[in-house]
C-alpha cells in the first residue's frame, strides 16, 4: 500500500528545489547580461508563485488579489529607496504628499518593511475575505485587485499614479535574490509540513468535514493569507529593485494571470510544482518572446505574430486544467527518481 502524508520532513523535498534553483541561477544567470536579467525577474516571479502556493495551493481557494500585495510591496520599497530629489521634483510626482518625500532607507530594510506592511494589508483584507469560499472568494479577491490598482493608478498624492517612479536603486547581485528565494522555500516548506499547513490542506480536501473535527477554517485561512501576503509583498519589492522603476501597471492583470498560470501549470498542491511552473512558463515565455521579436534561437529564426506568447500560455493553462488539473508535479514534492538511487 502506498505511503502517504504531507507532514513528514524530507531533506530531498526541501533541498532538491533549493539546489535546482541555485544551479539554474548560477549557470543561466552567468551566460549573458540579458539572461542574468531574465533570471532575476524569474526569481521575483518565483517568490510570487510561492506566495500563491502557500494560500491558493493549500487552501484550494482561488485568489486574484495577490497582485495587490505585490503592488503595495513594490510601491513601499520603491518609495522608500528612490532618491529624495526624484520624489520631490520629478514631473510625475509633483502632486505627491510632501510628508512622503523625505522617507528614505536602504534596500534591505525597505524590502523587510514592504513585506511586513503587505502582510498587514493581507491580514486586514483577509479578515473579511476569508469568510468567503469558491466563486465568491474569487470575485471578491479580484475586486480587491481592482480597488488597489485604481487607488494607486489614479491617486498622485500617494505615488506616481499612471506614470513611473524612476531611478529606484537596483539589486545587481543575483545571488541576493537567490538567497531570498531559498529562504522563502524553507519558510514555505516548513509551513506546508506544519500542523497548521496540514490543517489548511484538510480544509481544501473537505471543507464540510473539517469543522466537524473542531477546525476553525476562517482562522487557518487567515494565517495562511497573511503569510502569503508577506511573500507577495517581498516579491513586489524584489521586482521593483530588478526593474529599477515602479509602475502600477506591472502588478495588474498580466502579472496576476502569469503567476497564477505558473502555479496551476506546475501544480498548485506542492512547492515543487510552484518551482516547476515558474521554470517552465518563464522558459517557454522567453522563447516565445524571442520568436515574436524574430530573434534567433540556437541560430534558427521562427517568427510568430506579436501576442502569440500570451495566447499560447493561455492555451497551456486551459489544457492543464482540462487534462491534468494537478499540474506537472501532480501534487508531489521533489524526490530523486528511483532509478538514480542505489
Amino acid at each position, binding site marked *: *500500500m*502506498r*505511503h*502517504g*502524508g*504531507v*507532514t*513528514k520532513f524530507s531533506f530531498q523535498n526541501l533541498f532538491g528545489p533549493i539546489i535546482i534553483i541555485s544551479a539554474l541561477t548560477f549557470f543561466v544567470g552567468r551566460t549573458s547580461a540579458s539572461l542574468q536579467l531574465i533570471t532575476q525577474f524569474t526569481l521575483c516571479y518565483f517568490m510570487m508563485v510561492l506566495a500563491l502556493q502557500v494560500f491558493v495551493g493549500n487552501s484550494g481557494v482561488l485568489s486574484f488579489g495577490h497582485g495587490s500585495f505585490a503592488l503595495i510591496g513594490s510601491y513601499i520599497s520603491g518609495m522608500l529607496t528612490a532618491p529624495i530629489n526624484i520624489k520631490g521634483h520629478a514631473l510625475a510626482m509633483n502632486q505627491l504628499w510632501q510628508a512622503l518625500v523625505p522617507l528614505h532607507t536602504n534596500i534591505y530594510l525597505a524590502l523587510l518593511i514592504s513585506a511586513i506592511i503587505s502582510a498587514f494589508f493581507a491580514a486586514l483584507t483577509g479578515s473579511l475575505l476569508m469568510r468567503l469560499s469558491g466563486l465568491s472568494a474569487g470575485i471578491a479577491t479580484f475586486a480587491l485587485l481592482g480597488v488597489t490598482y485604481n487607488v494607486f493608478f489614479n491617486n498622485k498624492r500617494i505615488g506616481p499614479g499612471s506614470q513611473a517612479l524612476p531611478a529606484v536603486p537596483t539589486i545587481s547581485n543575483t545571488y541576493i535574490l537567490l538567497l531570498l528565494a531559498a529562504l522563502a522555500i524553507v519558510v514555505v516548506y516548513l509551513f506546508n509540513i506544519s*500542523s497548521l499547513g*496540514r*490543517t489548511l*490542506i*484538510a480544509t481544501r*480536501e*473537505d471543507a*464540510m*468535514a*473539517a*469543522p*466537524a*473535527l*473542531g*477546525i*476553525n477554517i476562517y482562522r487557518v485561512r487567515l494565517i495562511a493569507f497573511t503569510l502569503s501576503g508577506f511573500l507577495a509583498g517581498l516579491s513586489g519589492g524584489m521586482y521593483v529593485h530588478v526593474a529599477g522603476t515602479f509602475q502600477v501597471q506591472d502588478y495588474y492583470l498580466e502579472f496576476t494571470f502569469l503567476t497564477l498560470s505558473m502555479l496551476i501549470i506546475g501544480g498548485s498542491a506542492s512547492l515543487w510544482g510552484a518551482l516547476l511552473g515558474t521554470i517552465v512558463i518563464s522558459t517557454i515565455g522567453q522563447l516565445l518572446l524571442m520568436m515574436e521579436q524574430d530573434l534567433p534561437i540556437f541560430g534558427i529564426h521562427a517568427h510568430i505574430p506579436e501576442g502569440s506568447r500570451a495566447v499560447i500560455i493561455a492555451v497551456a493553462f486551459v489544457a492543464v486544467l482540462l487534462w491534468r488539473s494537478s499540474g506537472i508535479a501532480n*501534487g508531489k514534492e521533489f524526490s530523486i527518481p528511483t532509478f538514480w538511487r542505489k
Partner: protein
Amino acid sequence: MALLEISNLVAGYGKVQVISDVSFSLEPGKSIGIVGPNGVGKSTLLLTIAGAISPNAGSIKLDGTSIFGMRPEDIVRRGLSLVPEGRQIFSGLSVKENLSLGLTGRRDKKGSHEAVERMHELFPVLSTHEHHQAGMLSGGQQQQLAIARALISEPKVLLLDEPSLGLAPTVIADVFERLREIIHMGTAVVIVEQRANLVTSFADETIVIRDGKVQSRLTPADATNTDSLNRSYFGAGD
C-alpha cells in the same frame, strides 16, 4: 440529567423545513438509533445537532448547556463529534495525519499521545497502516479511521451517519462491535442507519422519523418483529 437533550427541534434548508418536531434525550453510555425512509431528514437532524445546519426553533442541550446555533468547531470542543455520511476522511493525508486532525477538537491537549495510543488499541488496523495514505484504505478501514478520528477528541456524545454504508456484512459486524466497546466506555452514541433491523437490535432505543417528526419509538425487542418494524418504518396500516 440527560447528556444530550433535543426538544421540539425544527430545522431545514432555507425556507424548506425538513425537521418539524423532533425530541429525544440520551444518557451517558447509552445509544439511540434513528431510522426512517430516504429523505425524511435523518442526516439533517445529525447535521443540525452538530452545528453544520442552523436550527430554526427548539432546543439542543449538551450536558445541561445549550449548544443551539453554535458553530460546529465550538460544539466539538464542548464534547460532541460527528462521523459524517460517506466517512469524509482526508484521502490525500496519511492515517496518522487524519488522526492528528481529530486532536484539534480536544479540550485537554496534554493527553493527545495517550489518546492516539487508545485509538490504536481500539482499532489495531490503524496502527498497522499508520503511515499509509488514507485514501488507499478499504471501505471498512476508512470507516474505522473516521470513527477513531471523531473519537480521539474524547467526545461525550458521538453522532454517526450511516456507518454501515458501502460495507460488507462481516465488516459491518466488526464496526458495530467497536461501537459497542465505545458505548461500554461511557460515550453516548446516536446512529442514523438505513438498516433498521441492525440498528434497532443494537441501540437501547430507536426512533423512527417520518415527515420530519418522531413517528414511533422502538426497543431491541422490536428488531425481530418484522410487522411492527414495517408498520413503524413505512407507515403500513396507518
